[in-house]
C-alpha cells in the first residue's frame, strides 16, 4: 500500500481557508498541521540504521511481502510536526487547568530529570536482583511514605492507574471474604461516586447499590446503616467526596461497616486535600488507591500513564497482588516478590501466602514511582501538609469569590475542601454549562469538570490545586464572573463559542455515528484532489 496516492499535499491552498484570509489556513502562530500520512511517505526515514546481512534463512516463509503503509519523516520534519501539534493543546504549563477531581498541579521538572537517570530508566524488569538493588530500595522508600502518610499497613505498588487500583482494592476485599468463607454479593456506592467505582465493583462480580446523599451533599449515614447486612461486602466511599466535601461521619461509617462484617474502600482521587493533615487509616479505611498522577504530581501526559498504588489495612495486606510491600514489626518495609512470598508470609502473617494474583506483567509504573518520590522528598512532611492547606485555601477562595454570581449548592453548609462545586441554576433559558465552558476557552482557561457529579444539575467542579498563585486565581475569577454574567443574560454569542481556539465546536455525534478511527486512503475524485475539509465528509 502506498501512502496518499491522491497526491494531496499541504502545498495546495486549503479549501474554505478564506475565513482566515490566508491560503494556507494558518493564522500567524496558529499553524495548521496535516496528518503524517499526508506529509510522509514510506521511503523517507529520520533514522540512520547500519546495513544488515539480509539472509533470513528459515523464516523466509513468514516474511512480509506486502507494504505496511507506515509514513516516515526526516528528523527536522518530525520535530516540526509534533511541535506544531503540541501548540494546539492547552496544558498546565500554559495556565490554570481546574478540572475537578483531576488535581492538575504543576509538574516539577526535577522529577522528569530523576526519572531519566539511566539507573532508573534503563533497567529491565527481569534483571537479576543484584543489579537493581537501588530500584527496589526506591520502591520501598516510596512505599514507606505512602504507608506513613495514610496510616495504613501495607501497599500494593503494581496497579497502573486509579481505576486499576480500585480493582486491586476490591479484589483484595473479595479475596479476604472468600478466605473466611463469607460469600457477600453487594457493594454500596454513593450516587456521587466516580463512574469507575460501580464499574469496578461490577467487574469484580458484585451487585452495585446506591447510597443516597443528604441535602448537604454527604453520605446519608442512617440510610447506609439501614442497608448494611450480611450480604454487603464493601462500601466504596470517596473522601473528600466528589462534591468537594469531607465526609464528617467517615469514622462512624467505617465502624458501622466493620460491625456488619464488611470492608471500607476509599477512592483516593481527592487525597490532595488532606495529605499530611488526616490519615485515612485513622478513619477506619481498609483499602485506598492513591493516584500518583494527582496528589504526587506525576504528569498526566494527555491521558496516562497513571499510577495507582493501593494502601491496605492489616486485614487486607496478606491478599495484595504481587509484588507488594509490607512493614514488619521491626519497622522495616519489605518488597515481596513471588519467590520469597511464601517464606515471608509464613514468618509475618503466620500462614500461607494468600495473594489474589498478579495484576500486570511487571512491578508497576517505576517511572512514576521515581517522579512521585522526587516530589515527596522535595516537599517533606511539612511541605505536604502545606500542599493540602493551600489547595483547600485556593478552592475556598474561588468558592467565596464567585458564590454571588454562580449557584453553589453546598456553600451554605460550610467550607469546601480542594474543589468548589457550582450549578447552572440561574442561567438564561437555552444556555448550558457546556456554553459556559466553551466561553472560558476563549478567555484562555481550560474549563472545569462539567456535568459531574451527577447529583447537581449542570455541575461545574473547579479544582485549582495549590500550585496556582493568587494572581492566577484572581484572573480566573474575573473571567469566570464575566462568563457567568453572560450566561445569566443569555448572551447569544455563547452558543457559538469557542471563537478563538484552533477549532470551533466539534461534531461529536458525527464522529460516533460514522466512526473514522484510522487514516484511510482518500478516494481521489475525478476532477480534483480532496482537501482536508472534505475528508470529514467521506
Amino acid at each position, binding site marked *: 500500500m502506498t501512502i496518499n496516492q491522491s497526491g494531496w499535499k499541504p502545498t495546495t491552498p486549503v479549501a474554505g481557508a478564506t475565513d482566515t484570509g490566508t491560503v494556507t489556513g494558518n493564522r500567524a502562530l496558529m499553524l495548521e498541521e496535516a496528518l503524517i500520512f499526508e506529509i510522509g511517505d514510506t521511503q523517507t526515514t529520520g533514522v540512520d540504521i547500519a546495513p544488515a546481512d539480509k539472509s533470513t534463512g528459515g523464516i523466509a516463509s*513468514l516474511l*512480509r511481502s506486502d507494504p505496511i503503509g507506515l509514513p516516515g519523516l526526516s528528523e527536522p520534519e518530525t520535530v516540526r510536526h509534533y511541535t506544531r501539534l503540541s501548540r*494546539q493543546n492547552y496544558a498546565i504549563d500554559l495556565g490554570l487547568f481546574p478540572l475537578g477531581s483531576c488535581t492538575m498541579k504543576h509538574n516539577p521538572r526535577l522529577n522528569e530529570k*530523576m526519572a531519566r537517570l539511566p539507573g532508573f530508566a534503563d533497567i529491565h524488569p*527481569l534483571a537479576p536482583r543484584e543489579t537493581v538493588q537501588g530500584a527496589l530500595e526506591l520502591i520501598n522508600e516510596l512505599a514507606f511514605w505512602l504507608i506513613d502518610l495514610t496510616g495504613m499497613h501495607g501497599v500494593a505498588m503494581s496497579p497502573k492507574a486509579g481505576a486499576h487500583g480500585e480493582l486491586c482494592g476490591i479484589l483484595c476485599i473479595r479475596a479476604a471474604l472468600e478466605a473466611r468463607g463469607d460469600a457477600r454479593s453487594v457493594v454500596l456506592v454513593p450516587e456521587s461516586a466516580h463512574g469507575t467505582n460501580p464499574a469496578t*465493583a461490577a467487574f469484580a462480580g458484585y451487585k452495585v447499590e446506591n447510597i443516597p446523599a443528604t441535602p448537604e451533599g454527604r453520605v446519608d449515614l442512617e440510610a447506609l446503616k439501614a442497608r448494611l447486612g450480611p450480604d454487603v461486602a464493601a462500601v466504596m466511599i470517596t473522601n473528600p467526596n466528589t462534591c468537594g466535601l469531607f465526609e464528617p461521619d467517615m469514622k462512624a461509617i467505617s465502624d458501622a461497616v466493620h460491625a456488619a462484617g464488611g470492608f471500607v474502600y476509599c477512592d483516593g482521587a481527592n487525597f490532595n486535600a488532606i495529605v499530611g493533615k488526616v490519615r485515612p487509616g485513622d478513619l477506619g479505611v481498609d483499602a485506598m488507591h492513591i493516584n500518583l498522577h494527582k496528589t504526587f504530581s506525576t504528569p498526566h*501526559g494527555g491521558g496516562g500513564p497513571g499510577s495507582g498504588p493501593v494502601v491496605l489495612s492489616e486485614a487486607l495486606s496478606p491478599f495484595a497482588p504481587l509484588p507488594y510491600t509490607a512493614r514488619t514489626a521491626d519497622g522495616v518495609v519489605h518488597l515481596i516478590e513471588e519467590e520469597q512470598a511464601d517464606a515471608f508470609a509464613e514468618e509475618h502473617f503466620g500462614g500461607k501466602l494468600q495473594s489474589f494474583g498478579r495484576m500486570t506483567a511487571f512491578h508497576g509504573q517505576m517511572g512514576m514511582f521515581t517522579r512521585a518520590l522526587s516530589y515527596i522528598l522535595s516537599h517533606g512532611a*511539612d511541605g505536604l501538609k502545606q500542599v493540602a492547606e493551600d489547595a483547600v485555601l485556593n478552592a475556598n477562595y474561588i468558592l467565596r469569590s464567585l458564590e454571588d454570581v454562580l449557584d453553589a449548592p453546598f456553600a451554605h453548609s460550610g467550607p469546601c475542601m480542594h474543589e468548589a462545586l457550582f450549578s447552572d441554576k440561574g442561567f438564561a433559558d437555552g444556555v448550558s454549562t457546556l456554553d459556559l465552558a466553551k466561553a472560558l476557552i476563549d478567555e484562555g482557561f481550560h474549563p472545569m469538570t462539567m456535568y459531574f457529579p451527577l447529583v447537581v444539575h449542570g455541575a461545574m467542579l473547579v479544582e485549582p490545586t495549590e500550585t496556582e498563585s493568587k494572581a492566577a486565581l484572581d484572573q480566573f475569577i474575573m473571567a469566570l464572573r464575566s462568563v457567568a454574567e453572560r450566561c445569566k443574560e443569555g448572551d447569544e454569542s455563547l452558543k457559538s463559542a469557542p471563537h478563538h481556539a484552533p477549532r*470551533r465546536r*466539534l461534531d461529536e455525534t458525527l464522529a460516533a455515528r460514522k466512526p473514522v478511527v484510522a487514516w484511510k486512503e482518500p478516494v481521489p475524485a475525478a476532477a480534483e484532489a480532496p482537501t482536508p475539509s472534505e475528508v470529514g465528509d467521506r
Partner: protein
Amino acid sequence: MRYLPLSDADRSAMLDTIGVAHVDELFRDVPEEARLDGPIRDLPLHASELQVERHLSALARKNVPAGEVPFFLGCGAYKHHVPASVDHLIQRGEFLTAYTPYQPEIAQGTLQVLFEFQSQVARLMGCEVANASMYDGSTACWEAIGMARRISRKAKTLISSGLHPHYVSVCKTMAKFTGDTLETAAPELSPTTDLDDLAARIDGETSAVVVQYPDILGRVADLQPLADAAHAKGALLIVVVTEPVALGLLKSPGEMGADIVVGEGQSIGVGLNFGGPYVGLFACREKHIRQMPGRIAGETIDADGKRGFVLTLSTREQHIRREKATSNICTNSGLCALAFSIHMTLLGEKGLRQLAELNHARARVAADKLAAIPGVRLVNDLFFNEFTLELPVEARPAVHRMVERGVLGGVSLGRLYPDEASLSNGLVVAVTETATDEDIDALAKALTEAVK
C-alpha cells in the same frame, strides 16, 4: 517551598476574603480526633533540589543500566535505541502537562497524535482499527479475552503455552472474578509450537484462542491454519505481540487471520523503565469496533467544516455506563503512545524494515556463536531477535555467574517458571540492534564459563 506560589501575605488576604481567621477552620468537617497536629513525625522535612538529586542519584547508582554492559534480556521488554528527538518532544509541556482531551477544541494536538498512533498500530498489526492504547501488553491481553467473550458469547479460552507466563497470570487473576475458563499449559523446550494442538482442541464452546507471536521462547510459526480452525468453530483468534519490531520483517497477525491483535509497544520509543510505564497496543477488525475497550480518537468536523478529532464511542466508557460498563479502564497510556508514534514516524516503513533486519541479523550471529559452546543447544532455529538455549546446567545460577563477569546474559526460564523443573536449563536470549560484536563475544565467553 519552591512549588507553592502563595506567600503568607497572600494567604492572609485570601483568608480575609473567605471570612475565616485560620486555615484550620476550613478543615472543620474533619473530626478533631482525626486531625494531625503537625507534620507526621517520623518523616523528613522538605529538601532542596540538590539534596533530592543527590539522594536519588545515589539510589540510581546502585543499579546496572542496560546501556553500560553487554545486555541480552528480553521476555516482554526489549532494549532498543530511541532517537534523541523522541524524548525531547514528549517533554514539551503541551504534551507532558495536558490531560485527557475532554475539551477537543483545545486538545487537537493530543487527539491528532492519538488518531495517527491508532492508524500506525492498525497498519503494523494488519488490522483495520486500533484504540488509543492500554496500560500495557498484559492488561491489553486480558481485555482482548473479555472482548472475545462479548462477541462470541462463550467463556472458554485456549491459551497457548507460548504466551508470556506473566500475561497468563494476569489473565488467570482476572478470570477468577469473571467466570471465564482459561486452559493453559507451560511450554516445552522444543522447536515446535503448540499451534497444531490448539487447533485440534477448539470446539463449539471455545470463545477464543490466544497465541503469542513471536512466543515466549522466541519461536515463530504461521498462524493462518490456526485462524482457519478457530473461525470454522466460531471462535476468535487473539494474537499477542510483545516485540513489535518483529512486524517490520514478519507477516502481520492480521494478514494471517487474527481477529484481535494486542501487544506491548515498549520497544518503540518507550524504554525499559524497570517494567513501566509501558504502552498496551490493541487492534481489531472494523466490524468489532463497538466492542473494543479503552479510548478511541475519531475524525469529525468542526462548526466551520474543518477536519478535527474527538474522543469517540465513549458510551463504552465507565464514566457513562457505570456498573454496566464493559471495562473499568478509565485512562490509556497517552504519553507512551506519543513516544511510540514519534519513534515510528522517524523510522517510517523503510526504517522499521531496516531496524527489523538488523535485529534479526544480530540475533542470528549470536545464536550461531552461542550454539557452538560445548553442551549448549539452540532450541529454536526459527526466531526473530530472541531465541532459547538449553544449557547443560540450570540457567538461573548461570545468569548470576554471568553477572559476576559483567554480562546480563538473558532471562532464565527458571525465573519465569519456578515450578517447572523441565524448563530449568532454559535461557532466553534477546539480541537487538544495540548488541555489538564485542558484546556478543563477551556473552559467549561469559556463558562458556558459566556452564562449566
